[in-house]
């Protein structure tokens, strides 16, 4: 695991890792508009996100990157004043098409939040809750196995295997965030959204989670909103730059950071605003 990270950070060699020509579109938004009441928050975003890659959204606060992320699993539906137009397709199916149950969409598209939000239950229950409800496993050894695998997947198993009945809230912030990742992968989604997953954490926890992300992309498509440009540079394969509700530029991370096409991107990356 650490080897891979080292390679990336040291060599900045994204291409080699990606395997040219094997980009399969997983999530695709077509002319996506969003309004909070009268206020326009997204202005016709067109974006293709590739399978089993890490895509980072960057941009100054209020640029719409988090709003856009929450469109991808219909979390914006929870806000009354929101109005959405356009399409978001996952594997070619529009998640906003009439008759689509947003609950079913969220099963396919998991999400990790800025603040770690473990449930007020034991560590075991935190992970087992959703798979049991979704009938992915039945109670018993299957479930135990899934919990173990998910916690291993989140790199938390060794730390908590002896305290599965302890409350999830008793863990440290970084552990809580990994617990949240574990419970997300336990549902076996296709896509995992991460909304500034490390902004509430200390540098060491942040590093652990960044490594974890790179590991997870073997199995999932990861979309990460980050406030931290270095983080995007470290982990992301693709980077999208948002500004005032608009997708300004999208491309491979190296290209965005080294050779941005748009002057606004360049200004942001070089710290002229943001």
């Amino acid at each position: 695991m650490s080897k891979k990270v080292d390679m990336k950070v040291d060599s900045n060699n994204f291409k080699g890792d990606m395997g040219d020509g094997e980009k399969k579109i997983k999530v695709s938004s077509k002319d996506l508009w969003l309004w909070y009441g009268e206020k326009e928050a997204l202005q016709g975003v067109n974006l293709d996100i590739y399978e089993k890659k890490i895509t980072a959204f960057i941009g100054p606060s209020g640029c719409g990157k988090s709003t856009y992320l929450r469109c991808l699993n219909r979390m914006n539906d929870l806000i009354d004043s929101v109005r959405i137009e356009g399409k978001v397709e996952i594997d070619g199916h529009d998640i906003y098409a009439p008759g689509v149950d947003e609950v079913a969409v969220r099963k396919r598209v998991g999400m990790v939040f800025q603040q770690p939000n473990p449930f007020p239950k034991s560590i075991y229950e935190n992970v087992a809750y959703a798979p049991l409800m979704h009938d992915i496993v039945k109670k018993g050894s299957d479930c135990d196995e899934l919990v173990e695998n998910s916690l291993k997947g989140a790199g938390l198993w060794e730390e908590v295997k002896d305290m599965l009945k302890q409350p999830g809230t008793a863990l440290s912030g970084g552990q809580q965030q990994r617990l949240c990742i574990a419970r997300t992968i336990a549902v076996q989604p296709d896509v995992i959204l991460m909304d500034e997953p490390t902004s509430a954490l200390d540098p060491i926890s942040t590093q652990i989670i960044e490594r974890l992300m790179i590991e997870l992309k073997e199995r999932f498509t990861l979309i990460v909103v980050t406030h931290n440009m270095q983080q995007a540079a470290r982990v992301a394969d693709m980077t999208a730059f948002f500004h005032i509700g608009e997708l300004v530029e999208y491309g491979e991370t190296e290209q965005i950071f080294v050779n941005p096409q748009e002057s606004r991107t360049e200004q942001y990356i070089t710290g002229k605003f943001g």
Partner: protein
Amino acid sequence: MSKIDKNNGFYIPQLEKRRAKAKRFKYIAMSALIVSLAFLMFFLYDMFRQGIPAFKQTYVKIQVEITEENLENPYGFLDRDMISIVSRAWLRDLPNQAAANPEWLGTTQEFWALAGAESDQYMKGGENRLKDRVKDRIDELKESGDIRFQTNLIFFFTGDSKIPENAGFYSAIIGSILTMLVTMSLAVPIGIMTAIYLEEFAPDNKLTQFIEVNINNLAAIPSILFGLLGLAIFINFFGVPRSSALVGGMTLALMSLPIIIVSSKAALKSVPNTIRQAGFGLGLTRWQIVRDHVLPPAMPGMLTGSIIALAQAMGETAPLIIVGMIAFVPDAATNILSAATVMPAQIYTWSGMPEKAYIEKTAAGILVLLSVLITLNAVAIYLRKKYTKTW
């Protein structure tokens, strides 16, 4: 991943069952709320149904020849049916009226006399113990227009009476006003001053914390225990007259104190600290800051809390029973030391009476009490809305 394509790419059959369950849960929760609102509706409907008739009263037209003899024996000049119809209270009062109008003597006067409670109930279609003969007579009078309803002013302008048609809410209303004056003049200043001390002056030590815990507990102590305190300390120890507005008001004041303190503290707390710091920066003393810059914005909040506390005290009965405020009080109290009754206590006494007429009066009393309380609360809510300042 499951890709069962029914209508779209996201369809999962198991979700149907869970969705149905969720819907059921929502409806159960909704029906619980509807049930609690239905209770309120049913309750209000019931009170109006029972209470509204009490606001009108039956009066019957009679001719009386004012003679010495008739005034001696007011029951003599009526036939036996009419004696059952006309109120005894009215007949008893007739000599007084005649004395006030000496020119009546020797003439025949026409009166709309107050009808008895039984006849009144018959007119209102309620249960009554009238003989059929009397009922027929009332029906006849109704035909000829000699018996009719009038607005029941007695209810608002007389005190309690053992004669149901003559019983009114007046002394209870006056008693409540007197008691509330006592409560207000004690609880509001002491409560607000305590809050100011605790919030602005008290050092944050064990003693202060103890006082705060105490106040919180006091707010949740059953009200009847305040009655025991009033009885043991105010009446037995200090010798405050039993049944008086003073003892009732003092007892209720102790009861409303914690509520006033808690809400006043909250109001003071809502004034941001930056204002105090700015004051210190200008070289003002603590009291000057509190008086000129903290109290004015906190005042509406304190007022609201006080009104709500007083409204609660106004509806309180249990402690007042203990300090003797359920005495039979026909005449309104004239000062805070004389025997008085209050609205809820009057409601309690009437509700124990067997006659149907008292039940009607009880419900009417409840309507009066509730409208006062709702008005007070509405004023409080209005004040809160109007003056709530977001910093």
